């Protein structure tokens, strides 16, 4: 196990964590990607999101609060003795995770998975990460029998400028390539921002 070394009771925890988000439309293979590369079978949990809304004709100023449950699938990769990487995907067609700021705050970045048969499923995720300046790459999942498009064609159709790669989310090596592309992209952005720490 990775958490070896010095006595944590004496020295505090020597291990820390980082996270990557796996986003995209319904049925595009987010949880499959997590399962292909995670060292544990993907786990599922949920969070309660409180949406605060104010009625347009509400003169009293009383806010309406609606609590929504958003499901989350995740996996884990031990990077080395000091770092554990978590991968988060939202199963199903879940629009509510966009309200969950904590999930994307501090993330290395995101993989936006694209199904070329249903490109529109990727738009909300692309918009979200673009607007927040979060590093992201496009993973074009090649489904069996799906009509083939080049990476350039997909990027033009999405009207997005980001690193992109063809992938098969069932294949571990292919998933590694996608995550490395993202980490390298995040590294380039961090270096460009002068973050030479």
């Amino acid at each position, binding site marked *: *196990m990775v*958490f070896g070394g010095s006595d*944590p*009771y004496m020295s*505090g*925890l020597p*291990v*820390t*964590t*980082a*996270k990557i988000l796996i986003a995209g439309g319904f049925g595009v293979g987010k949880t499959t990607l997590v399962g292909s*590369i995670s060292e544990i079978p993907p*786990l*599922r*949990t*949920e*969070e*309660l999101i409180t949406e605060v809304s104010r009625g347009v004709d509400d003169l009293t100023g009383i806010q309406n609060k609606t609590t929504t*449950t958003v499901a*989350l699938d*995740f996996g*884990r*990769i*031990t*990077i*080395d003795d*000091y*770092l*554990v*990487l*978590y991968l*988060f995907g939202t199963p199903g067609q879940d629009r509510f995770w966009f309200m969950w700021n*904590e*999930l994307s*705050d*501090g*993330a*290395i970045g995101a993989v936006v998975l694209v199904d070329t048969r249903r490109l529109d499923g990727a738009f909300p995720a692309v918009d979200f990460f673009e607007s927040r300046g979060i590093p992201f790459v496009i993973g074009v999942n090649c489904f069996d029998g799906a009509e083939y498009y080049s990476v350039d064609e997909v990027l033009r159709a999405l009207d997005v400028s980001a690193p992109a790669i063809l992938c098969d989310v069932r294949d*571990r090596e292919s998933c*590694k390539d996608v*995550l*490395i592309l993202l*980490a*390298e992209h*995040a*590294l380039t952005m*961090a*270096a460009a921002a002068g*973050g*030479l*720490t």
Partner: protein
Amino acid sequence: MSDEQSWDEDDDLGPLVRPYAVTRGRTRTGRPELQVITLVMTSRPLEQIPRAGLDDEHVQILRWCQRPLSIVEVSSHLHLPISVVKILVGDLIARDLLISRSAVNPDIKVLQAVINGIRRL
């Protein structure tokens, strides 16, 4: 719950219908530093922790956290929402029964470690 109850007993209550019942109505933690991927672990061996004053969910968390575990993993294992687990973990940190470690800022050094680590898989 009696203080004599053994740590070995499995008193898993299963999923709860009203999540904030287990926090006695509290809906937010006083510890904003607790995040989804914050790691937590017991501050000392389980046998040295008195069970007096701990709820069943606190006890379950302590059992799971004899090794470092993230908030989101605790949440999944206990079938409780993440925000509920944060409140309960906050209780245990306040009693010095859990220690925590925040997520790292993904700087260049971390990103290089991630790239190398994934290549080695």
